[in-house]
């Protein structure tokens, strides 16, 4: 059975005067252990999709089944519990508590499970060990480099042993070298059996994922092996850029 089953997902934002269709009839199904990239330009609806998959938001219509349960009819509290139990978030801007140490940051989701201080500490240390940050546990986020901060965030996502690791532009705020390290870490986690969904606008990143889904204007336009989707994406982007360039050139040439 699929871990994630999205069927006929639609999401509209009511902006008062107009309605924005962020997602249109999205069908995606993800199995346990998959490593999937969601690609698309900004405004394509990938963040909306991620919020829905992460149970931070609910679709306007359609069904979302996570681990066999329909998430659509859960209350706010139950959604919070699902986020705590099933999902591990990794954000572009790390989203660590600035005043708490790395260890305390990683312990945070376990507080909402009612684990004792000792259990929390053990689990958090274990998770930090997985991202090679055991010697930086007592440091505050401000005392860590960007790559290290993102690792703390990944440890925080892992500490709950979630069904799904959800990463939103995890390399967006990092230089290419540290970004590379983080990507490597994701691949490593995937090889250990974690299910990972990665949202990115970088075709390069998507190309290295076993599977990628491309969104354009809220529609799934491609779903297949990462390399192919990324290539198509780049091609489309290239064509768009070329068209824009030609149009610009024309208007320049057209002037008297």
């Amino acid at each position, binding site marked *: 059975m699929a871990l994630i089953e999205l069927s006929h997902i639609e999401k509209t934002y009511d902006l008062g005067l107009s309605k924005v269709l962020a997602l249109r009839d999205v069908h995606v199904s993800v199995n346990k252990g998959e490593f999937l990239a969601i690609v698309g330009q900004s405004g394509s609806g990938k963040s909306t999709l991620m*919020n829905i998959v*992460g149970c*931070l*938001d609910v679709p306007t219509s359609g069904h979302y089944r996570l*681990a066999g*349960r329909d998430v659509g009819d*859960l209350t*706010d*509290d*139950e959604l*919070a*519990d*699902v*986020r*705590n*139990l099933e999902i591990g*978030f990794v*954000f572009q801007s790390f*989203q*660590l*508590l600035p*005043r708490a140490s790395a260890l305390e940051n990683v312990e*945070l*989701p376990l*507080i*909402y*499970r*009612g*684990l*004792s*201080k000792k*259990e*929390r500490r*053990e*689990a958090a240390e*274990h*998770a930090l060990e*997985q991202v090679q940050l055991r010697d930086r546990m007592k440091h505050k986020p401000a005392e860590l480099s960007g790559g290290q901060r993102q690792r703390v965030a990944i440890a*925080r996502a*892992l*500490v*709950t*042993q979630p069904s799904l690791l959800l990463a939103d532009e995890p390399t967006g705020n990092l230089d290419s070298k540290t970004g590379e390290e983080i990507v490597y870490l994701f691949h490593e986690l995937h090889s*250990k059996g974690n299910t990972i969904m990665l949202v990115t606008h970088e075709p390069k990143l998507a190309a290295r994922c076993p599977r990628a889904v491309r969104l354009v204007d809220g529609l799934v336009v491609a779903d297949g092996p990462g390399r192919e989707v990324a290539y198509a994406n780049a091609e489309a982007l290239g064509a768009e850029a070329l068209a824009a360039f030609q149009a610009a050139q024309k208007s320049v040439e057209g002037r008297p």
Partner: protein
Amino acid sequence: MSEAALGVGLQRRASAREIGFFRAFFRFFSELRDAVVQALRSLLMHKLRASLTILGISIGIATVIAVSSAAIGLDEAFGRQLASLGPNTLYVSPRPWIVDGGNWWKYRNRPAVGQGDWRAIERFANLPLAVAPIAGTQGVVGKGGKEIKNVFIRGTTESFLETGSWQLKRGRFISNIDHEVGTDACVIGADIEDAIFPNQDPIGQQLRVGPIGRCTVVGSLVRRGNSFGQSQDMLIVLPLSAFLRTFGQKRGVTIAVVAPAGKVTETEDEVVAVVRNYRRLAPDKDDNFAVNRQDRMLNMFGDMTKQMKLVVFVIGFITAIVGGIGVMNILLVSVKERTREIGIRRALGARKLTILLQFLCEAVVVSCVGGFLGTAIGLGAAKLVSIVTPLAASVNPMIVVAGAAFSAAVGLIFGLWPAWSAASLNPIEALRYE
């Protein structure tokens, strides 16, 4: 990752509905602890801001505690003063103690209560345990070069001891024989004894009383202490006959009547009947005398302090609002500052109630710290009042408890709205907040 290391392996798939009671219990406590830790941390981060708010609350609480201590102190002092009149003692005098201003003319021309009334009560009233006529003035008492001014001089009989519940320290009290025969015996209060006869036996010594009187000390009274900053022991007691001889025959007296316990009203009725009969008042005439009771005075005073308590309550209420606004303000700022943190916590599984709890904790911690400080300051101020002024401020342990509860309530009430606004933030928008 080893599931055992986490201890939640089996728990992991449990849905919200399936989380057990004990888990929920532990969850609440770990959340509460985290909330308190976060609240303290947040206060320590913003020391100035927090201390200003705390100052606001503590000034408020201190005011309430100081004022209510003074009020209760006054209440108690008055109660004690009146208790010294004796709970079962009636006082017959021309006018009631409590006179409504508009009715003053009614009492103006009443005849004095005299020895005739006293004799009549002694003879015809059956219920009273003791009856004492008391005439009084203030004057000078002296011996040799020593002179004491403003001494309470009382002319009375043997029963004075019982009606005023005084106790003898030395010698004997004046007797009815002293009164009947007209001896110059007198009994002195503790202040007179200390002032005129330090370290010597006063018995048998001569004293000057008033401008022309002389008396021989036959006994002294046990010290009674202050009441409203005035000593009750600046007292000299003479037999009634000697008093009248010295200070004038036409002086009226007050007749103190001790009623048996539980029969105060019956005794009052009897005394009224006896005095009316003695004065030959026709049935259609009003009483031209009054029987005063200590408990009536107490009631009147109770009404007065009730108003004072109302004022204290109003002050407390305003204080609570002012302090509460401070709490609300600091909390709104805190919510704004920590919007992203709220988003992060919500994304990681915090429920709305968890966020609410966290900010309520912060509010309660601020207001309780303010409350404790305020209580300490208030108690100090009350102590100061009791040292500097004759008002004995009473420090009631209940006040301290009430102060703590009050400040916690202020925190809860005024923290509720900001905390709720934090809890109902949309997690997605909160995460994006810059």
